[in-house]
């Protein structure tokens, strides 16, 4: 199998999973798609060095790039409001509450929550993926949950 066909196969198999994580990280369909495209581009760029675990590499790129984009855009962009909002098929009240709650977190808090509770990474793995210390992961998780608790008490109670 050539590198090109292996890459195409990887994209075909895993782009949807990457898109799910990207959407949770960004909360925006367009930005999530850009994030996936960027991660796949970087994966193609370094393919020969990372072909053993391209998905892990692509995910790390997404984690870092999301925070990096936020740092660049926070002073220049505003949300598109309803244009970017999701149209959930079920449990709309609760998911809207979750979306709204996630939107009020910082990208760092949001990323760490996604890694911990959606990607099932340990604190150590999360710290390594984001490039921060374990104690930062712990404190950020604590603050993020506290904020969620204030915004959506039902959700956090259910989680706890």
């Amino acid at each position, binding site marked *: 199998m050539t590198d*090109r066909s292996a*890459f*195409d196969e990887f*994209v075909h198999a895993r*782009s*949807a999973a*990457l*898109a*799910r*994580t*990207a*959407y*949770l990280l960004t909360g925006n*369909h367009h930005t*999530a*798609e850009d994030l*996936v*495209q960027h991660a*796949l*581009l*970087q*994966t*193609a*760029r*370094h*393919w020969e*060095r*990372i072909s053993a675990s391209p998905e892990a*590499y692509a995910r*790390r*790129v997404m984690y*870092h790039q999301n925070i990096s984009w936020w740092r660049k855009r926070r002073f220049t962009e505003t949300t598109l409001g309803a244009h970017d909002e*999701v*149209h*959930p*098929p*079920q*449990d709309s009240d*609760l*998911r809207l509450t*979750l*979306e709204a709650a*996630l939107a009020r977190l910082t990208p760092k808090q949001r990323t760490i*929550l*996604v890694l911990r*509770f*959606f990607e099932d990474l340990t604190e150590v793995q999360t710290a*390594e993926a984001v*490039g921060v210390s374990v104690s930062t992961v712990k404190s950020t998780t604590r603050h993020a949950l506290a904020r*969620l608790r204030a915004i959506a008490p039902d*959700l*956090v109670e*259910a*989680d706890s």
Partner: protein
Amino acid sequence: MNLRSELEHLADTAPRPSIDSTLWDQGRALRRRDRLVTSAVVLALVVIVGGLVSLVVGPPRAFEPADNTVPGGAIPNRVVEPPVMIDPPLEANLGIGRASAAFFSAGGVPVIIGATDGRYHLVKLTGTEDRRAALELSPDGRRLAWSSDDSGVSVADLTTGDVTDLRRQIGTDDVVVTLSWRADSTHLTWANQTRGGIVDVVTGEAEQASMTDPFIFGSVSPDGELAAVIGRRGPAALFAAVGSSGTRLRRALPVDLYPKGTNVVPLGWAEDHLLLAEVFGPKGSYVEGSHLVLLTSPDRPESEWTFRIVMRDQPVSDLSIAVDLIPDLDGTSSQQLTHDFGEPDWPGQRDISWIIGLGVAAAVAVLLGLRWLWRRRVQLR
């Protein structure tokens, strides 16, 4: 319902992305660019490290002009004043080879310009430390004569470096103020305030001469018929017939070039009837300031006269030129009479511009390398 399951549900709403089909090609293009940048950085680092190592442990850099050399020798297309240096390194060995020009710098340092390579040599001439003496390069550029503070005259063979003291042949107690070579480059005329004479520097034969003889105060043509002399500012160059008559001849200068007249100082004869002279064009002249010209002597028909500017903006005073290095005129105005040897490198003054350039390049290369390493560490972790 917990947070994980809610995140799962929320993620389910993410649409399947439409992936650009050219991603692989774009990624490969970026990869090729990465390799090029990496290669360039590595090459820059190697060059910089090699350059710094050679700078520290290598032999001293030769002080040579950047331009080429002329096997037979040539007059430089310009002469520059050396930079002011405190205690400049002076060459004691005068065996520097054929020279094209010689002069005292504004700081009183004797300077000789190599004929073939255009190198500037700051030299040590005995007896010239306290005052600016006469300094004359022979027409063939192979001998250098100078007068010393203690009434002596010395001649250096620039091929061997041997110096001959002519004090005994001249036999004067006064300081010699003028020196002039005959066209054969073996006879040297000298004069002080009261006396003059001529010395054959090869055989040592010497003659005394009257101060009224034109060849004492003028530059004698190769055929010995005419002497070009220094005149006051005016519309013509002055010449005198050599011999008992001493007839004065005037050679009119181009009025359109020097409407207010000019001073002409003879430097030597390039041919029997072609004089090289230094001319100072006053304000309003076509060529202002000091410059060197070739002009036909007045003993030729005016229809044969030529007037060529050889060197403009000549900055030094009492420049001596090896006139034999001027090529025979081919009658075309495009003929190159001088050669561009490039910027001179001065002994004792290290050119640090390239070191600064290397330093900046090194800093940029190191920053690029660090950035590349950092990005690689972050992205591959």
